[in-house]
């Protein structure tokens, strides 16, 4: 596919009208190719949405694209039924608690630790930080069995706080890594002059670091929010009655065909919130992604 690209470039990019037209024509195949690709990329999500507004009986007879020939089959009955389903509303509530709770705790604890690693002096600081980096890739499978046992002993199995704290712990290495790298870039003079003015570390942290670090904190918060909102595994292991939306839908998967009028709209609802977050904070999301992967 890349081999097709060279033919596209037009030499001598003079900005006359003729050159512009020529260039537009020359890139036409590429534009069409990318447009088709873009549409294809949207088809699955679109299909989920259409399936979610069709009655379950439609799913066993004809595909979702029948909506184009029979627009009248569309119904929002699935959604209104879902909103009267206490299981789903409770699951959505649980998901929100987990996602918000985790995000707040990770941001606060991560920022504090990151500040210490960036600007406080203590013996072995860099070694501990390297240890934290090492924890970045530890698969959470390593902690499932031990924490399952420990939660039982502590009595926090199947509780919101148990699920949240697990997420927090596994979110912290990334949080500390991301924020520490950002905080290190804050000019030292600012901190020094604040210290000379007599501000203690807590004041500096709250009044200087947090406001200055806001872009990185925003990235981190969005990541944490999406990560926990979208989680399946942790809640599957540590919850039973405490079910976020993913686990709740997973409980319906066995009857995929007949429960599609629940599965499809619930899945679509579950991805609405991440989509809104994504579109509202796209810039921070991409920044966080770049800071996290390309160092």
């Amino acid at each position, binding site marked *: 596919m890349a081999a097709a690209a060279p033919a596209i470039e037009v030499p001598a990019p003079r900005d006359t009208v003729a050159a512009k037209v020529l260039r537009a024509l020359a890139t036409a195949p590429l534009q069409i190719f990318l447009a088709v690709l873009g549409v294809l990329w949207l088809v699955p999500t679109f299909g989920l949405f259409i399936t979610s507004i069709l009655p379950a009986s439609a799913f066993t007879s004809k595909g979702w694209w029948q909506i184009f020939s029979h627009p009248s089959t569309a119904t929002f009955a699935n959604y209104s039924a879902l909103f009267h389903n206490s299981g789903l509303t409770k699951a959505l509530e649980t998901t929100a608690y987990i996602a918000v709770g985790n995000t707040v705790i990770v941001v606060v604890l991560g920022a504090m630790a990151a500040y210490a690693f960036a600007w406080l002096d203590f013996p072995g600081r860099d070694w501990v930080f390297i240890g934290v980096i090492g*924890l970045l890739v530890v698969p959470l*499978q390593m*902690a499932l069995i031990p924490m399952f046992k420990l939660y039982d002993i502590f009595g926090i199995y199947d509780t919101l706080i148990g699920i949240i704290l697990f997420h927090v712990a596994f979110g912290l290495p990334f949080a500390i890594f991301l924020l520490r790298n950002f905080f290190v870039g804050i000019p030292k003079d600012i901190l020094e002059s604040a210290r000379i003015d007599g501000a203690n570390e807590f004041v500096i942290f709250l009044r200087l670091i947090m406001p200055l670090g806001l872009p990185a904190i925003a990235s981190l918060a969005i990541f944490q929010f999406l990560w926990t909102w979208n989680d399946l595994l942790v809640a599957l292991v540590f919850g039973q009655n405490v079910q976020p939306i993913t686990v709740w839908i997973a409980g319906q998967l066995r009857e995929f065909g007949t429960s599609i009028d629940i599965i499809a709209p619930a899945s679509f609802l579950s991805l609405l919130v991440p989509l809104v977050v994504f579109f509202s904070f796209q810039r921070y999301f991409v920044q966080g992604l770049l800071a996290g992967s390309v160092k």
Partner: protein
Amino acid sequence: MSTAGGITAEPPVEAAPPPTAEPGRLGRWLTNGVFLTPALLLLVVWMLYPLVYTIIRSFFGQNGYLGAWVGIDNYKSLFVPFNLSNPLLVAIKNNAIWVAVVPALVTSIGLIFAVLTERVRWSVAFKTVVFLPMAISAFATGVTWRIMYQQDPNLGALNALSRSVSSVIHSPGVLQDAAPSSAAITGSPQTGYVLKTPLHPGSVAHLGLTAIPPDAVPGGAKQAVDPAAKPGDIVGVVWRDFKPGGGKPGVVESQEVGLPGVSVQLRSSAGKTVQSATTSSDGTFDFSKVPAGSYETAIGASTFRKPFAGYGWLGPKLITPSLIIAYIWIWAGFSMVVIAAGLSAMPRDVLEAARTDGATEWQTFRRVTVPLLLPVLSVVFITMIINVLKVFDLVFALAPQSTQADANVIALAMWRVAFGGQNNFGAGSAIAVFLFLLVIPVLALNIRRFKRDV
């Protein structure tokens, strides 16, 4: 100076009191402690302790806090028996496929997208669309693609598309369920039916078929005609050998219709097709100027071809490729965005210099762009290896219960063994440690990269 508890009581920076003495040793320790302890405590309890415990636990049996010492048996169960009847080995095999295929594909697709979008004005729109799946949970993606992958071409979009393509290449046969009406005709719908009676120039072939519902009779069919023999030719008829209320098999009778549009082949005694013909509306066909010899006639398999029934995307054979396609749908956006950022950070003058020196676009891409992007490409590649090793949600949601064993991957196997019914914590721990061992090279790489940067 006070430490803990002073967070809100402290005056703002501007109104800070005059410089005081450096906080004492104890004060510094307390400050550090307040900043670090909560995070480190969580890391120790939720990550370090489990790390140690899981490693130890992996050498013990199924139940209890530790269970009975079993040595390396749990690890053995990963590889023994070393064949695909071992579900854990299936998981390892599948994950190996994932690692071999996905990082390379995602990186190259991302590179292609990044390079191509640089040339269009609306690149932001394109990037947003391709990046969108990154925000959605892998679980919801699984549900989404499960709808796409439904086997019935009436339900699954992918198979509906395949059907429209396949009906262009291989249109379904005109007589899908037909069967021969007499024992003289042998064969199967897959191979076609052959009239075993030897034929010579001047013979008449009778190819009667039954089991054709009235609504499946091809349009334009007329009363079947038993053709008269022609010297030098082999003639014959293909007809619906069924008459309401009875009739003689193998004999063309009134009210029995010919079957038009059927492709008939004349085969030599060696089985080679020497001529073919299509039946007319009364079912007759004519092979003209046949050299002397012994022949057979046959109705080709294409006549009996069933309509496209859909690929089993969710079946045991295709499930892993299906999962990989959905996974690439998720991650291509990530790869594209990271590589595009690398592209935009690339020194433009180097590219310009290459072009000025007369390099073609392809040469510039191969010899300048890709080498300069190599660090970014390798970051994407390594990130994808890690992600692929840990893949769980997508498989859990997309693979139906019946094929989950065929779709198994290491992370899913760990869950199934430890929590999904078997409750074998010893074997589960061993799988987790195995997964951990696989990511250790990347862990080492991360640390080395950091040490270099400091």
